[in-house]
């Protein structure tokens, strides 16, 4: 009988400690934005992990022009943190060059070869997640990388 509470606790923890398979749900988990109507053709995957800073996500989707404004005005942070940073445009040369952290899990399933001269790069932190978003302004295809940080 004493095993029952233990087994229940383990089952309960296992039910919480998972990462959804649906890319739209993982996207929501990382950015705290539900039913984003500015994006379509969303593909992607990721992992929510303990320790939290080992979490990651990679997404391809297409967006409309309003998406860029919605990011730049985003302020729906998960929690108050000195490490939150509003989304802002940055020089594309600062977009990560080594993508192996994301691609080694995904075995070439996602498009990563974007011509940076055609792109804008938007980055921001919704603590603990860091978002690096590369948007090709010729066709509005997006490469969106998520990593996590440890406070």
């Amino acid at each position: 009988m004493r095993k029952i509470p233990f087994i229940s606790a383990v089952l309960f923890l296992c039910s919480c400690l998972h990462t959804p398979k649906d890319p739209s749900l993982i996207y929501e988990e990382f950015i705290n934005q539900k039913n984003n109507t500015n994006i379509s053709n969303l593909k992607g995957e990721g992992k929510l992990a303990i320790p939290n800073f080992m979490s990651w996500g990679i997404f391809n989707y297409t967006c409309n022009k309003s998406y860029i404004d919605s990011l730049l005005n985003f302020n729906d942070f998960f929690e108050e943190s000195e490490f939150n940073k509003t989304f802002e445009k940055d020089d594309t040369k600062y977009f990560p060059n080594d993508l192996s952290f994301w691609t080694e899990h995904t075995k070439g399933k996602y498009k990563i070869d974007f011509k940076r001269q055609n792109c804008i790069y938007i980055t921001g932190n919704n603590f603990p997640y860091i978002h690096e978003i590369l948007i090709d302004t010729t066709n509005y295809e997006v490469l969106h990388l998520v990593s996590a940080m440890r406070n």
Partner: protein
Amino acid sequence: MSDNPWAKGGKYYPNWIEEDKEFFKQDAEYITGKRNIAPIREKNPMTDQWISDEELTAFDRIFGRIPRGNPYEWLVKIFEQLTGLQFPELPADIRLQADWNHMFLIWFFETMPSIDNAYWTNNSKIIFNDTSLYSIDPANSVSFSDINNKACIKHQFFKYADDKRPNPLKASFSFTGPDSGKQNYYSWVEWFVGSYSTHINWTKKDNGSYDITAKIDNTTSWYSGTRLPKTWQDKIRKTIGFEIKNLVDSAPRGETIKRNLPSIIVRTLEFWGVSIPSFGGNWEQEFYVKTNWEV
């Protein structure tokens, strides 16, 4: 059977002689490389029978999976199998002057040792002067001085032209998963401190270099290492009605276990004069960093 009970085969002949002979014979084969399995001969306490070759082979299969020598590696392997993630290798540091392992011990065992060029302001806060080795290491660390990584402080400093850069400049270092995976990139400074924010006061010198002074604040607690993802926190709150933010609760020094026990137990133990131990209580550090940068 021999008539002499003490001769070989006799009633009182000590059988261990034959067993020892067999043991040393196997041992000799083992040493010369003829056998793969060490000649262990023990009794199984459950059956009180000698352990058979089949059982030995089974044990070898089970224990052979554990990497020899380092239990940390074994734990990491289990963690990796459970989560499907590759856990980063911890740094093998030759770059540091201070003993950062000592810092972990001070935090975990909640001690207050005296440290050169540092002073305690109360039982949970220490200040390291800019001459302390514990401040010199952060000044030379990757997180502070890698100009090529946008997660690092020096990169953020030189992103600004001199006339656009505020003084002091607020900058923050992010200890991220991708960078933590680079072998021997971060040192124990970053693994101990994690992410941090700092205000940098700077003066440009005639030779074009910059004198830099900064203060790094850090609180070491269970929260930073065992934090649960926010969505998991939400699911737990919805299901059981109260919040669990991290696997191990953060608490002030002296109270980490006490805060997790029901108050009746705490009161009873205190009534009987039992002192409740505490491990890894919140510990604040201030590092005063001084350095000189060139582009």
